[in-house]
């Protein structure tokens, strides 16, 4: 117990010392995952909208497929894209393997189903009258879509947070696609895995604390934008 406390205190000291290697790892993590979310969110939310409001053959099957993809392990996604991006793979000529772009692609694949499924749930629960009222008051389909999304913004924001939480903390795809190269593709989870395997717990705990604080901060933000967290009167 003493050792755990002293290691944690050393980890906090390391964070406060502004160790450049440590903060570089944190910056890479946020940069890669933030960019992946930024690219994935618009098409994912659009897909969610079509699944909620569209009536076309195969719609239910698509919803089931996205729900199934939620439970695919990150390492399987990593393996799939590793095979696609490796030299012998069909996308080998792009030379993306072990770059931040490869990590971004993997993370897009990981957060896309979360954004679609959670976005779909929020949009499906939206009042149908919101869409109809917007349309009858002259909004074009895109304008009405934005209106409906604004009406269910808290649910969509929660979907974005869940997607971000999933990709910033995943280790399998980042390790396989990024290669854990210091100052280039080493992010928080791959660094934790490496430092722990070396018996260097201080840096691992410091990075773990960053993830915990980030999750806490994002949840406080979500509750703040949602209001008081009470049933509306």
């Amino acid at each position: 117990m003493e050792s755990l406390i002293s290691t944690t205190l050393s980890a906090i000291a390391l964070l406060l010392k502004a160790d450049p290697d440590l903060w570089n790892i944190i910056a890479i993590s946020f940069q890669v995952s933030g960019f992946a979310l930024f690219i994935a969110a618009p098409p994912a939310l659009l897909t969610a909208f079509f699944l909620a409001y569209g009536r076309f053959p195969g719609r239910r099957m698509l919803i089931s497929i996205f729900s199934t993809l939620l439970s695919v392990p990150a390492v399987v996604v990593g393996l799939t894209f590793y095979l696609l991006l490796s030299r012998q793979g069909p996308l080998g000529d792009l030379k993306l393997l072990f770059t931040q772009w490869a990590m971004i692609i993997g993370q897009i694949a990981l957060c896309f189903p979360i954004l679609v499924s959670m976005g779909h749930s929020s949009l499906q629960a939206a009042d149908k009258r919101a869409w109809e009222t917007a349309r009858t008051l002259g909004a074009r389909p895109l304008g009405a879509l934005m209106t409906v999304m604004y009406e269910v913004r808290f649910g969509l924001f929660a979907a974005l947070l869940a997607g971000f939480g999933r990709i910033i903390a995943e280790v399998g795809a980042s390790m396989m696609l990024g290669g854990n190269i210091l100052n280039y593709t080493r992010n928080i989870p791959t660094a934790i895995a490496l430092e722990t395997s070396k018996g260097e717990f201080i840096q691992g705990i410091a990075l773990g604390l960053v993830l915990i604080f980030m999750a806490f901060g994002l949840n406080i933000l979500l509750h703040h934008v949602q209001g008081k967290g009470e049933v509306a009167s």
Partner: protein
Amino acid sequence: MNADKTYIAFNNIHKHYNRRPILMGASMELKGGVCKLLTGPNGSGKSTLLQICAGLEKPDQGELSLGVGMIPWKRCRRSLLEKIVYLHQHPYMFEGSVIKNLAYALPGDITYKERLRRIEKGLEWAGLTPIANTRAKSLSGGEKQRVALARAWLRNPAVLLLDEPTASMDQVARQRTLDLIKRLKQDGIALLIASHDPMHFINETDQCLVLKQGVIHEESPSDWNLHNITPIQRDQEINYGAS
């Protein structure tokens, strides 16, 4: 838009839900400054017909005329959305104040000053000025209906479709809503009011349409006044006058 010259005819509208026929060749005409009352029992398809007329719901089959010749519904959907405003039984209020809700109905290409002027006009028109900054979702049913009518008025539609506009309202709220409907009619807007309790609207009504088994039958409101009986009551063989 010269609402007085409005003429829209819907012809042979068919609609099925889960293989159950709802509309089976419903036809009607709407004219500027004329108020028609669409009645029929619950579940007879009044709301569905209104939504099809507003371009919000697709019919299985149907055509319409905007003055010259019949055109398939599919090809006129955009025109319907531009010319017609549909009001739900319980109007939907967007997140934000009454002002923000009225602003939603205004075109995007007007100046900020003009926008404010029109919103102010809308607030005055519906008597909403005292609650202009109130969150629209927190309003009472009657107030929401007035916001919805003001929104529709600001949109300057050729046709306004109202689905049970005074349902579950008290006497005061109902009268205020009816006053606004009367003013919309005076403005030359073509009105179609769907209600299963039509006696509230009898003074404003020029023609009654009864939706029965998916088909519309035209009736004169004077018959109802004469016997003080609605078609539904008549169909149920309840002698309203004798009770």
